[in-house]
């Protein structure tokens, strides 16, 4: 796998990842396109530029760790895994079918290179803290990255973890909130408003950075700042658009958990390819 900081190259990877996402979810006839598409730039930046990892040596003890706490966005993780060479590209379309390594939610029994089996929201940040603490005990340079949904952080455990991270000065963890403002049943503001979100994280003692979650340069800068911040954990509030890249999915709560039809897929691929 070739790592790169070149924004044009990252954009090209992101385009392929988006194509995989809509294609595999259409093939599966179920799945979560919206929250997969909103997290594309975050995962591509991490796996192709920022994180220290090696698909040829997935058990390398000093690798960085990644947890997709919002496990329903599995298609973005699978697409990035396949592009990075961890898993085959040609079977992405077996998503969610019996025997597929591409289970409905990330499943370590099928893909050992996954750091966590997720799907029940709210637990990933705590899990990441444990990995970060283990790394510090081992004097390992490992950094831990945890992607959270905005709806997901309504779970109380997230805020228990937030307190822990700041109190114990866990500075080798970086949480990313995919702030796409939509959850399962509709808009976050109508279900359980999170604002003022940045103030909340700051009050909990986190180095809090707000970024455009679709801007590679901004993400690169924020991850560098996170790595340079000592004595406190960092959270990136990534302002994103749910369904990003496909006009009829963008900002549309319907596409939280509904697969595109064949016709919709054609349209989506055209728009992504353009």
């Amino acid at each position, binding site marked *: 796998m070739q790592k790169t900081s070149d924004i044009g190259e990252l954009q090209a990877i992101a385009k392929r990842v988006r194509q995989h996402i809509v294609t595999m979810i259409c093939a*599966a006839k*179920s*799945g979560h396109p919206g929250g997969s598409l909103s997290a594309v730039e975050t995962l591509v930046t991490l796996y192709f530029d920022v994180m220290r990892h090696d698909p040829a040596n997935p058990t390398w003890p000093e690798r960085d760790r990644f947890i997709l706490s919002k*496990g329903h966005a599995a298609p973005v993780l699978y697409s990035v895994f396949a592009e990075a060479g961890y898993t085959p590209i040609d079977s992405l379309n077996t998503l*969610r*079918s*019996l*025997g*597929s390594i591409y*289970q*409905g*939610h990330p*499943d370590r029994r*099928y893909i050992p290179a996954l750091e966590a*089996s*997720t*799907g*029940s*929201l*709210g637990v990933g940040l705590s899990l990441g803290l444990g990995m970060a603490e283990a790394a510090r005990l081992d004097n390992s340079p490992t950094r831990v990255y945890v992607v959270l949904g905005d*709806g*997901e952080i*309504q*779970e*109380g455990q997230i805020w228990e973890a937030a307190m822990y991270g700041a109190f114990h000065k866990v500075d080798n963890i970086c949480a990313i909130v995919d702030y796409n403002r939509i*959850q*399962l*049943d509709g808009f976050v503001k*109508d*279900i*359980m408003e999170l604002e003022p979100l940045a103030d909340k994280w700051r009050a909990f003692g986190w180095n809090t950075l707000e970024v455009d979650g679709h801007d590679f340069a901004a993400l690169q800068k924020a991850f560098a700042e996170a790595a340079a911040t000592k004595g406190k954990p960092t959270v990136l509030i990534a302002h994103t658009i749910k369904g990003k890249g496909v006009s009829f999915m963008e900002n549309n709560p319907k596409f939280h958990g509904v697969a595109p039809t064949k016709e919709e897929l054609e349209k989506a691929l055209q728009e992504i390819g353009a």
Partner: protein
Amino acid sequence: MSVKEKFELKMGAATREAFGKALVELGREDSNVVVCDADLSKSTFTHLFGKEFPKRFFSCGIAEADMISIGAGLASSGKIAFVASFSAFVLNKGFEQLRVNVAYAQVPLRVVGTHSGISIGEDGPSQMSVEDISLACSLAGFTVLSPADEVATFALVKAAAYHPGPVFIRAGRLKVPVIYTAGQKFEIGKANTLIEGKDLTFITTGLLVAESIRAAEILEAEGISAGVIDIHTIKPLDKAAIAAAARSTGCLVVAEEHFTDSGLGVKVAQAVCETHPCIMEFHGIGNYYAESGTPEDLLTKYKMTAKDLAVTARKALARKK
């Protein structure tokens, strides 16, 4: 009358949908009925209630534990309170709250877990509830209901609203065949004997009731008379009905979409040991997590079909001889 003549098993609504409709009817009849949701209202069908009674519908966000305690607060203030989510989330995330704020405190909260079992399909094990019967039954003072079709669900949800003490209702995602005729009466705690058997009896619940009826039909063609008892109330268990089946057929097959080592089977076994020991087989899911797949593929692979039940029944009968 043959099994085939007696049960048409036409496809009906999912039990989660029947639950949502029963809630709306309850809401119309009684302004004291309130509902809490944790961002799954469209999946649990509580959105029907929310739409008609927005003031009595409490959106808790994705925070199941909080929802349980909020529901307990409503229930202990005289409201007829329902809380609902996927069974896996409402029980596993909210267990401490269920134990302390509801069971221990003897608060009559109505807890509904939809998407039980492996038949949810593609979402996979993180959302599959295969230990919920065990968890719910271990809560002291809880009544645990597990309806098999839309008729049973509608009736039991309505009965649960006014039942003394806390109640857990287990519902499913899939559309399921209709077993009961409209208007059928259900008594909480009293099992329904759907078919009287001579050779063996299926003791079953939820999704596997219809499959047990179909298995009885398969066995009937082989000259085997299999009975079917629908345990729509798992707690308190109708020990008298189970003892009667043990006495009359001497052979029981317990069938459930749940871990066999902690579900209905072990509770039936206890009742049988206490009353009339007989040959028993346990048909369900072993102590492992399944996988993603279409519901049909999963039910086939994990042996949740009538054919598989017939195999287990023959095994039980072979032991009887």
